């Protein structure tokens, strides 16, 4: 949480207008094109003060993502945002805007909150596409009123290019991580930093990291017998990833919402924001939070497993993330039919366990892949 606060402080010192967004796939390009600096309030950890502020508003059986972002937004020292943006994804997050608005008002620092409903059905459906278009137009009008700027096609295209570059570099880095050019924990950290850096700085960071990784890559000569994929809404804690690598597992692919799912797809450049976001969400990399992508997700996971010759999948479960949890049993069954083993590990805000707790299971899993 401190990392987030420090980053925001640095942004504010440079005079940036910061908009905190949730959940994970907001229309960043559009927000950016209005001169705002979007940060995605995702993947935070409880700070030294724990989650006391959050606990006054939401029950402890909400997921860590919701509790940490609530804590962050309400913490007095972190009043560094100029606005909040949210779209509908899960049931927990859709309840948060009014809670945050009310709590901030009570604390004497109200923030504007922008909300849009992104269709939860395929945007191939005409009515959904029409509804989406109206939402984007409405958001543009709201942002124009808030920033005092008009929507600019040129600015929007520039923002699109920046984010496309960021996603492309992220994908390249992912390839390097699979080749051993950098440890998965470092790759994960490099991508997660995107949540709290201006996109321009993140692009620079990715370029630098990629350069180093390219030099260290050993060109695909890794032990494929222990190739695994990690799946989850968030990357597992660093200690857990290190325990996996120490046990000889090769993290060759990931299906993590904040990593591969965030960077695997980009819509085509378009100065028409409504058309751009219709394509963006319609063809987005499958994710349990994008309800209509669930059939595609099965195919995508199957393809990734075959493409990387994956022998095992580690499901990193974020406690109380029902969206992910509903899919595990079916996915585990599907993988079993493919001869791929799976391991389920659960983490959460109140269960910040030592990697030692997982170590035996991970080591056993690694040995099972040899059989």
């Amino acid at each position, binding site marked *: 949480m401190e990392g987030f606060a420090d980053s925001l402080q640095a942004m504010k010192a440079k005079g940036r207008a910061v908009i905190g967004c949730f959940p994970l796939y907001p229309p960043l390009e559009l927000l950016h094109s209005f001169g705002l600096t979007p940060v995605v309030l995702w993947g935070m950890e409880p700070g030294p003060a724990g989650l006391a502020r959050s606990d*006054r*508003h*939401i*029950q402890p*059986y*909400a997921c860590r993502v*919701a509790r940490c972002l609530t804590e962050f937004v309400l913490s007095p020292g972190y009043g560094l945002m100029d606005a909040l943006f949210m779209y*509908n*994804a*899960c*049931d*927990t997050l*859709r*309840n*948060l*805007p*009014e*809670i945050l608005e*009310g*709590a901030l008002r009570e604390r004497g620092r109200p923030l504007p909150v922008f*909300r849009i*409903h992104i*269709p*939860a*059905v395929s945007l191939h*459906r*005409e*009515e*959904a596409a*029409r*509804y989406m278009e*109206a939402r984007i137009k409405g958001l543009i009008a709201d942002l124009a009123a808030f920033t005092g700027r008009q929507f600019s096609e040129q600015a929007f295209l520039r923002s699109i290019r920046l984010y496309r570059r960021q996603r492309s570099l992220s994908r390249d880095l992912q390839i390097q991580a699979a080749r051993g050019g950098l440890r998965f924990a470092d790759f994960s950290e490099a991508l997660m930093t995107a949540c709290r850096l201006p996109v321009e700085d993140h692009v620079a960071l990715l370029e630098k990291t990629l350069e180093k990784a390219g030099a260290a890559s050993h060109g695909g000569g890794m032990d494929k017998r222990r190739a695994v994929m990690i799946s989850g809404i968030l990357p597992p804690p660093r200690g857990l990833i290190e325990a996996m690598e120490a046990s000889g597992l090769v993290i060759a692919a990931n299906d993590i919402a904040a990593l591969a799912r965030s960077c695997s797809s980009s819509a085509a450049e378009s100065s028409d924001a409504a058309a751009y976001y219709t394509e963006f969400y319609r063809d987005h990399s499958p994710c*349990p939070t994008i*309800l*209509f992508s*669930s059939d595609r997700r*099965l195919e995508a996971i199957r393809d990734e497993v075959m493409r990387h010759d994956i022998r095992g999948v580690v499901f990193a*479960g974020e*406690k*109380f993330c*029902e*969206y992910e*949890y*509903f*899919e*595990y*049993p*079916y996915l*585990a069954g599907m993988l079993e039919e493919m001869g791929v083993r799976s391991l389920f590990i659960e983490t959460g805000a109140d269960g910040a366990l030592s990697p030692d707790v997982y170590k035996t299971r991970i080591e056993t899993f690694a040995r099972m892949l040899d059989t």
Partner: protein
Amino acid sequence: MTAGDAKEAFRKNESGKRLSSIIANDYLTLHQRASEGAFVVWIAIIVPAEIFAGFDNVVYAVPESHAALCAGKGAGTVLCEKAEASGYSADLCSYARIDIGTVLGGGADSPTFGLPKPDLLVSNNNNCSLLVKWFDVHHRTWGVPHFVLDIPFCYENQGADDFAYIMAQFGGLIRTIEGLSGQKFNIDRAREAVRLSSLALQEWRRFLSFASHRPSGITAFDSFVQMAPILTSRGTGQLVEHFRLLADETKEQVENGIFPVPQERYRLLWDNIAPWHQLRKMSARLKHLGANITSASYTYCIGALEGRYEAYGYDGGDPLAWLARLQNFSVCPHGLNLRSKAMKEVIERNAIDGVVFASNRSCKVYSLMQMDQMKRIREELDIPCVMIDVDHADERKYSEEAAFTRLEALLEMIDAGRA
């Protein structure tokens, strides 16, 4: 009439007997018609079932309602455990676990032998988005098509764009059923079903209105039980008749001085889904304390627009428009301001002394605003509130003693306020 007589008289209420018969017949008819070739649709509870009346031979089943029935009959835990044994987390909604457990067990342990296998699944995201994930489980297992209705959440009252979007989706649903079943939709039949539903909901309101009597003519537990046919008999004359008789009988009891909690000292409101496994125990123990949960957000929202109490009547116009406008009626699809508005109205209307916020692990969407809502109610209306932990259908996640410690504390707070 003594208190003992009153208790005995209340127990003999004909509506309870009629209800059992309706529910049993509804499930029997469902199985029978399915076995005779009817097109079977499984729906989430807020999916407008009146649409199916527009087809010659379409029947619907409601897994959530079936799960509640299982929990009420004591089969919740065993069915949850079946799902958990197959890898479904115990943190998932207990309705979903019961339903998945029922399917995995081929209907064994279900009081209705499960539900007939569907030809189409229709879910929505207004009550909760995870219904879509839940129905996806069946979609994958059986390869049955899954139609999703996307209903935008209401932070304010439903907007014109949202309404138009919902209407367009109803059209898509109708075309989907026509395509899959080979049957043609007849809007006049749907209109008649909507007319009957609207009449039934007006009778439902009349029944609920006896909660304003002192002592109350009903308990929220009555409303929890009596809401069942809204989910199995929607759009039928049978439902109108049942609720008319229910309201008439309740009126007669009130006129004769027969009350569910004759020595009523505390009038409470319940916020959340019913604790199906505890209905009898909880109501009996509360009654012993002179407390009556007279009202519940779970049941007073039925048939009203988001944030309101009065029933939203049907004017004889486009039946689909009436259904679309009501898509945010239940508590979950609308936000804190609207929830608080309706709750305040009921608290005042029914002279509520205290509110029980049932924090329900199985229903985050209902529960995760309660802490703020409780604060508002406490501060703005100056009435005591308490939060207890429940799970609507998984008895293992409920502690009676822990709950009653808090409920008794609530009653003490009410007493203290009166002193």
